[in-house]
């Protein structure tokens, strides 16, 4: 063995880097293995971080002192709050990132972690204990060396059995110009884990110098002051603008003329692609009646002319791509620097994982990121965080932080993945979170940093920042607990009804005409010199308080069902009253408790009661036997 570490992470993408970093922050010795040191932290697809649902994930990873939000701020050349006109719970912070700056920030953050080692090389095979083939003890590298460890986190993205498609061309690989992990894929395929294939795609990269920008509507960076990580404090990179072009009927005709040469339609790609982020040929095929689709032209870096045309991911042949691009306004003279392509890759059925993303039945093996059937940097980073905490907690003999669907998108995603599996690349949406009124991007620190502190994965600097913020928050809450009458508010010029009565300032926030800053003036008669984001957070808490309170009962009921544990060995086949379909789904997902079983699709109320009765009975029989 060349070296010896506690946790070894394979893959230096968004999942792998978060996993390695959080484990290192928790104090265990970590090795991160990647083909090439230089590609660690690379953004392989669109140069943007955040968005609807995704922005929430970024903030949550950040609340655990993760890398992605700070790297995003270090690289942000364009800020935009999506859904800015809608309720705060569905607003999604999103930035355009300079690829080079992003990667550099990730590498810098990793380098600052003393117990993290980066290993350049190809992980060729997992090594199992000689006396127990269900326990991982290390990894063999392609150069013949080995690294011993007590847990491996697989974060190989699309590199597992990755295959690239562009028109009639075929290439092995996970990303253009990089090889795929074939040997490892063979071993994992042979291990009996349930596997399937998915596909994703990327658009051509354009030469910005050949775009007629004057002809296009531009979208400047917003003029707010928010940042991806509230810890960052302020924006510090020059801001660029994006522009919008649009496909038209000519574009659509060109695409149709090439459909027979598209691997997606020729049947060469069997894997299912994402409905939420379809290729342009998919869009034309499925929404043929639309007269056009928006194409966002996003700059890739401050010092690069590369432009990422968001909305036209494609695997059409290069000549068709060229004609398609040039049919759009502003792009008539445009040059393609790298044509788009589709990639088909192996993923494991995430229902084989538990809630720490450990593979059930194989000790010390974790999977995170695209390998679990998800799409997106944010989804990958979030899973990296969970798997990293999971592996480190297990190594250190600690509990996992108490994440659940009512406190985080992180848990919503993990729960969805391990219970429902995937039929298409999984992307986070706010609609997936039933308690989203309380899961806002703006309150991620308040929700999760206390849990992160318990898990001891927060650095000293952020701990100080958080404690200061908490102290300010408590002072503010004490202020807002005081009662004021409608008359008092009217005297301060607030727009309330005289007969509205007397209530705490916090309760007054339920009235949309009343803002937190108005009330602050009533209460303190001074300005707020603390953290500004705390004011917005309090205002939103107050606005939606009646709805959030109503959900409490629901969450309590679920908590009761979570206490009914469903042991790993339950034989669903032996429970009367379950359909074959239910047995199959329950068997694949192995829900950890009754509340989780209730969420497995197709499980009926009667079935749930039968499962509960059976579980209790089976446990009793076991207890008596033991």
């Amino acid at each position, binding site marked *: 063995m060349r070296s010896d570490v506690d946790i070894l992470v394979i893959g230096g993408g968004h999942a792998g880097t978060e996993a390695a970093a959080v484990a290192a922050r928790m104090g265990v010795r970590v090795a991160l293995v990647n083909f090439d040191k230089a590609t660690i932290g690379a953004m392989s697809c669109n140069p943007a971080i955040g968005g*609807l*649902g995704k922005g929430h994930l970024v903030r949550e990873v950040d609340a655990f002192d993760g890398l992605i939000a700070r790297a995003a701020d270090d690289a942000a050349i364009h800020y935009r709050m*999506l*859904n800015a006109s*809608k*309720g705060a*719970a*569905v607003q*999604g912070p999103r930035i355009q990132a300079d690829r080079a700056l992003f990667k550099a920030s990730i590498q810098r953050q990793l380098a600052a972690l003393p117990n993290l080692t980066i290993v350049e090389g190809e992980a060729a095979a997992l090594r199992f204990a000689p006396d127990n083939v269900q326990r991982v003890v290390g990894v063999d590298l392609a150069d013949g060396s080995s690294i011993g460890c007590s847990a491996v986190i697989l974060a190989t993205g699309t590199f597992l059995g990755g295959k690239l498609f562009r028109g009639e061309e075929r290439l092995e690989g996970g990303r253009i110009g990089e090889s795929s992990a074939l040997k490892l894929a063979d071993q994992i395929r042979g291990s009996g884990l349930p596997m399937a294939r998915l596909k994703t795609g990327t658009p051509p990269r354009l030469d910005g110098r050949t775009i007629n920008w004057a002809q296009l509507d531009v979208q400047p960076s917003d003029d707010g002051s928010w940042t991806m990580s509230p810890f960052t404090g302020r924006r510090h990179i020059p801001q660029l603008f994006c522009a*919008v072009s649009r496909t038209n009927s000519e574009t659509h005709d060109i695409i149709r003329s090439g459909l027979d040469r598209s691997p997606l339609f020729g049947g060469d790609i069997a894997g299912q692609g994402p409905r*939420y982020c379809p290729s342009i040929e998919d*869009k034309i095929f499925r929404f043929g009646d639309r007269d056009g*689709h*928006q194409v966002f032209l996003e700059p890739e870096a401050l010092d690069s002319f590369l432009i990422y045309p968001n*909305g036209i991911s494609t695997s059409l042949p290069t000549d068709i791509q060229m004609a398609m691009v040039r049919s759009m306004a502003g792009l008539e003279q445009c040059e393609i620097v790298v044509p788009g392509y589709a990639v088909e890759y192996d993923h494991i059925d995430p229902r084989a994982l538990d809630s720490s993303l450990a593979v059930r039945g194989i000790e010390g093996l974790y999977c995170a990121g695209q390998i679990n059937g998800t799409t997106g940097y944010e989804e990958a980073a979030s899973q990296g965080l969970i798997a990293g905490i999971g592996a480190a907690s297990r190594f250190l003999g600690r509990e996992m932080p108490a994440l659940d669907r009512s406190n985080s998108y992180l848990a919503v995603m993990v729960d969805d993945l391990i219970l429902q599996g995937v039929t298409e690349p999984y992307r986070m*949406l*706010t*609609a997936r979170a*039933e308690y*989203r*009124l309380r899961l806002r991007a703006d309150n991620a620190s308040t929700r999760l940093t206390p849990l992160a502190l318990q898990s001891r994965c927060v650095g000293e600097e952020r701990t100080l920042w958080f404690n200061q913020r908490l102290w300010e928050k408590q002072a503010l809450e004490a202020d807002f607990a005081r009662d004021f009458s409608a008359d008092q508010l009217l005297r301060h010029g607030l727009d309330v009804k005289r007969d509205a009565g007397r209530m705490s300032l916090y309760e007054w926030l339920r009235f949309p005409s009343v803002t937190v800053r108005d009330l602050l003036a009533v209460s303190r008669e001074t300005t707020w010199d603390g953290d500004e984001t705390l004011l917005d957070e309090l205002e939103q808490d107050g606005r*939606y308080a009646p*709805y959030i309170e*109503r959900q409490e009962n*629901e969450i309590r*009921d679920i908590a009761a069902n979570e206490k009914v544990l469903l042991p790993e060995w339950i034989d669903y086949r032996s429970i*009367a*009253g*379950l359909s074959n379909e239910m047995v199959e789904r329950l068997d694949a997902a192995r829900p950890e408790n009754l509340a989780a079983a*209730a969420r497995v699709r197709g499980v*009926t*109320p*009667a*079935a*749930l*009661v*039968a499962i*509960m*009765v059976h579980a*209790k*009975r089976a446990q*009793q029989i076991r207890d008596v036997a033991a």
Partner: protein
Amino acid sequence: MRATDTIFALSSGAPPAAIAVMRISGSNAFCAAEALAGRVPESRRASLALLRDAAGMELDRALVLVFPGPNSATGEDLVELHLHGGRAVVRAVSAALAAFPGLRPAEAGEFTRRAFLNGRMDLNEAEGLADLLSAETEWQRRAAGAMMGGAFSRRIEQWRQEVLVLSALTEAELDFSDEGDVETQNNHKISEGCKKLHDAIRTLVEAPGVEKLRDGLRVVLGGPPNSGKSTLLNALVARDAAIVSDIAGTTRDVIEVPVSIGGMAFLFLDTAGLRDASDDRIEAIGIERTRAAMESADILLWLGEEGTGPDRPHLVEIEAKADDPAHQRKGSRAVKVSAKTEEGLAELVATLTDTAKELLPPPDQYATNARQRDLLAQCVTALAQAASAEDWLITAEHLRQSRLVLDALTGRAHTEDLLDTLFGRFCVGK
């Protein structure tokens, strides 16, 4: 969990009777049958056997039927003993069963509860069964049959699908509208959809409930003292239910008489005559009750002066004592009745049954019970709020609430409480 126990109970009516049916359900049911009858007879075939207790004493000569689970009524191994229906026989067999290890008497509704737990029926079907078992009239039986047959559950599922569609449209506004590739401006479509669904569900909430079928339509006889209310009631129910005399104010309390006419249940209420300024405190209380009864009337038979009755939707003017030449005359819309000569009684009964057909749930359709109406009413409220909310997030939240309520109707939420409430309605042996 006690569901591992084997349970038994007398499933037929109280002895003495010609036959008494004893049911045994659970994993030890067949052992118990073997111990009593000396063998387990062929499945699903009635066979005659001599039952003996553990000491070998003869108990009864009975028909024994065995149904192996899971394809039995309870989903478990099930035995039926058709005994001679004497009290002593039933007592002796019960004692022998109770002495058998792992067997205990069933609690109320426990057989049905097991059927539900073992996936043999869903919650609404179980409620339908409870109603069917307590059905006394033909209309009640048909409505319970519709509930048990799953028609209601199918309707709920259909509404649930409609809410899901509305939710999906709302979520598209929230999650995709900023990406420029989703048809937005669904605003109108969503609020219209909520309103339409709201109206449909409200119609069911406001429709007569299953209680009306069971408890009967309330037909109140009202009018001044001595106007012939009690006499008419007696003629209608064909027995002396109310005390009749010609002293004004004889009926001091409200008398209730349940009657089934034409397969429909009615509850006739005879009231104290309405008159002002009574010195009699007891009679004053009676008059107060009369007012309350008239308030709650589904049909009011008014025997007082024409046009002086309370303002009720289904008021029938009655010209009573039609045989008495001195009786009070009314207009042509009034039903002329004589209790003595039975003149007009058939016409009055026809009027009652015609009105009842409007007021009762139509035959062969399910009618909702209080639990179902309460949940549906919550759904109606949530949909109204979803339709009027100006914040998409709140619309989505109300739609989610309505989905939860519809889930609760089929028993997804609050499972334990609901089961206890539901199965508490059954008697032992069902």
